[in-house]
C-alpha cells in the first residue's frame, strides 16, 4: 500500500532473524527513508517459527503487514510457510540447503515438504534459492546464514552499497562485523550469478 515496501524475515528461533531485520532497518534509515519494524519475542523464541517485518517508504504508519514484497527465509520450510504472504511479483529469497526439522517430522509423524520450486509453480513469485550455509561457512561463521541471505536479497532491494555498509555497521556488533560483511558480499555475488545464469 502507498509506496511502502514490506520485507518479512522468516526462520526458526535462534537463527538471527532479529539481527538481519535490524541491519535491513538501519539500511533503510541510512537511505533516508521512514522505517518501522516489528518482531515477536517470548514464547515464539524456543525453537518455534519466528517472523519479523521491516517496512520502509516515504512515510510508514503501520509496523506490520499481512503481505510482503520480499520474504527472506533462513530455513526452507519457513520459506514455504511464507510463500502465501508474498504479493504477486514478489520475491522469496531462501536458504535452500537449511532444513531444521520440526518436532512432528523428527518423530516421523509428519513429512518435511519436498520441492519448493514445484510448490511455488503457478504463483507469481520469483524464487531466489541460496546455499546460505555454504556461504556462511566460507565467510567464516556458520551463524552468518542470516546475513548471507540478506546479501542475496540486497539484489532485489534498491539500496546503495553505502547504505548497506552503514546498516551493517550500525546493527552488527563490532566483534563479528568483518565476518558478516564477508557473508553479505558472498550472498550478493551468489544472487547476481543466479540471476545471470
Amino acid at each position, binding site marked *: 500500500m502507498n509506496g511502502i515496501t514490506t520485507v518479512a524475515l522468516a526462520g526458526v528461533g535462534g537463527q538471527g532473524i532479529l539481527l538481519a531485520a535490524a541491519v535491513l532497518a538501519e539500511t533503510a534509515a541510512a537511505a533516508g527513508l521512514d*522505517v*518501522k519494524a516489528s518482531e*515477536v519475542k517470548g514464547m515464539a523464541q524456543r525453537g518455534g517459527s519466528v517472523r519479523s517485518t521491516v517496512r520502509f517508504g516515504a512515510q510508514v504508519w503501520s509496523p506490520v503487514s499481512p503481505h510482503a514484497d520480499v520474504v527472506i527465509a533462513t530455513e526452507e520450510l519457513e520459506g514455504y510457510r511464507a510463500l502465501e504472504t508474498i504479493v504477486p511479483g514478489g520475491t522469496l529469497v531462501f536458504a535452500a540447503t537449511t532444513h531444521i526439522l520440526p518436532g512432528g517430522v523428527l518423530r516421523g509423524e509428519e513429512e518435511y515438504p519436498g520441492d519448493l520450486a514445484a510448490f511455488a509453480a503457478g504463483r507469481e513469485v520469483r524464487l531466489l534459492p541460496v546455499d546460505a550455509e555454504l556461504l556462511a561457512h566460507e565467510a567464516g561463521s556458520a551463524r552468518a546464514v542470516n546475513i548471507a541471505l540478506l546479501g542475496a536479497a540486497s539484489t532485489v532491494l534498491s539500496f546503495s552499497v553505502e547504505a548497506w555498509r552503514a546498516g551493517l555497521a550500525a546493527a552488527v556488533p563490532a566483534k563479528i562485523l568483518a565476518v558478516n560483511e564477508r557473508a553479505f558480499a558472498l550472498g550478493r555475488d551468489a544472487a547476481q550469478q543466479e540471476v545471470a545464469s
Partner: protein
Amino acid sequence: MERTLFLSGNEALAHGAVRAGARFACGYPGTPSTEIVETAACLDGVIAEWCINEKVAMETAVGASLAGVRTVVAMKHVGLNVAADPFMTLSLTGVNAGLVVVSADDPGMHSSQNEQDNRNYARFAKVPMLEPSDGQEAYDFMAEAFALSEEFDTPVLLRTTTRLSHGRGQVTPRVTVDVEPREYARDISKYVMVPQYARVRNRLVLERLRALRERAECSPLNVLEAGTADFGIIASGVAYDYAREAFPKAWFLKLGMSHPLPYGKVARLYQQVSRVAVVEELDPFIEDQVRALGLPVIGKEALPADGELDQELVFRALEPFVSRRPPRRRRPTPPPVLRPAPPAPPAAQLPVRPPVLCPGCSHRSVFTALRKHRLAPMGDIGCYTLGALPPLLAMDSCLCMGAAIGMMAGFNKALGRKAAAAVIGDSTFFHSGITPLVDARYNEAAGLVLILDNRTTAMTGHQGHPGTGRRPDGSAGPAVDLQKLCEGIGVRCLTVDATDFPALDAAVKGEVHAPGLGVIVALAPCVLTYRPAPGRVDVDAERCNLCGLCLAIGCPAIASGDGAITITESCTACGLCVDVCRRGALTAVGVET
C-alpha cells in the same frame, strides 16, 4: 536537535521516562514489557530493580514516588492483576512525585495466557490512560504522563501493546525535563486509607475524573486531524497507525489520552462527517462510551474484538461503509450487512513448528520422571509450560503465575489423597509460589511440589530473581536459598541435580509414595546460560528396536526416519535419552575439543 535513534517501543518508553526525570524504575519481567526496566537499568541516574512480583513492584514504586522521585513501574497486562490491589487504592491516595504505570498488553496472545484489555483498569481505577501509537510517542508521552500525574495527583496508566513494545522505529530525542525531587510531607488523611479518610479521598477522585475529562478536551495528545472524506475514525494506540494507512483521506480523532474520553472532541468529529468508526484493538472500550453518548458508530460489528488488527483487515472491514453513499438524515438506517472478511487462502499442509524445550533442557528430565507416576501435574508459567505440548503432554493445568501449588493443594484435599503434583519454576515460585506453599503447610495439604530451579527467569530472556541475586544491571546481590526457605516453612525439601536423571527419578518416586507434603528442588542451570561441554550420543543400530521411548522425551536433537534413530548436531549429550533407553542402544560420548 539530537541524533535520531532507532529504538523499540520499550526502549523508547525507558529513554522517554528517564529524560522526563524518572529516577526509579521497577517491575517484574513479562513479555512484552521486559525491556523497559532492562533499558532503564542501563541509563545514568536511574535506580532499576526487578521486584519479586508485580504487586511488590507497584508498592515499591509507590514508596519511591512518596519519597519524592519520579518513578515508572512496568509489567505485562496480567501482571497488573497481581498488582491490582495496591493499584486500585493508589488511585485514592494519589502520588507525591509523578508515578507512571506501564501496562504492556498482548493482543493476539503471542506470549500470554489471556488477552485482557487493560484500558478497562483505567476506567475501573478512575485514572488517566495514555496510549502512544509509535516509538516517538512512546518517548514523548512519558513527559506528559509525569506532568499529568503530578498536576492531578494520580497514578497514570500508560498502555503499550506487543506491536509497539517490540516494534522499532526512528525516535528523535527531545528536550530533557529537569525536575527536582519533591519533599515528602507526612499527610495521614491522604496516605492512610482507613474508611473515614478513604471516603473523602473517593470524592476527590470523582472530582479529579471530571477535571481530567476537561483536560482531555484540550490535551495535545488528543488531536482532531482533518481529512477530505465524509468519514471519520476514532482510534488509539497502534490501531491508529493501521487505520491511518488504510484510510489516508478520512478524518481522525486520534486519542493519545483515551481515558477519560473527551466528549466534546468526539462531538466535533461528528460535526465534520456523517459516518464514524472506532478502530481499537480488543474491547469496544471507546466504542461503548461513544454509543452511550447516543451517537451512531461503526465498531465491533465490523471489526474483531479479539486478536491484533492490521491495515488490510481494517480496510476490508470498513471499506463497505466508506464506499456507501451518506445515510439520509432523519430516517435511521439499519447497519449494513457486512461482507465477511474473505477467508485466508487455504494454508498449505505444512508441518507446524511450535516452540520446544531446548536440547539439553533439564525440565525434560523432570517431566520424564513425573510422567511415570499417576499424578496430575498442575503447571505454572514459564518455559516449562512447553511440557504440556506433544509428545511430553506432562502438564494438566496452567492458569496464572503461581497457581500450581494452590491448585495441587485443593485437588488433593478434595480427593483426599496425593493425586496431583505441582510443577513451578524458580522465578515463578518466588513471584507467587511461596504463599501457597505456606498455605499448603498450614492446611496440611498433601502433595509433591517440584521447583524447577534453572537459576534464571528463562522465558523472558534470563533476568535475575531473588534466588540468583542478579540485578538488572548485571551486578550481584544476596541470593535467597530455596531449600532453606522451604524448610523454614516446615516442609520437607530435597535438592537434586536435575541433570542426574536416575537420582531425580528416585527422588520423585520416593516423594510420590511419601506421606504429606514434600518439595523437590530440581536444580540445573538453563542450557542457554552456559555452553555445555561438547558431546554427542551414539546410536547402536543393532540394539535399537525403534521402540520410540527416546522420541517420547520430545528432544529436538533426536530424529526418526528411514528405519533408524539419529542424533542431530544440536545434541548437548545431556544423557536423558541414554537413561530412558531400555536396550542400551544409546551411548553419550564426550568430544575432545
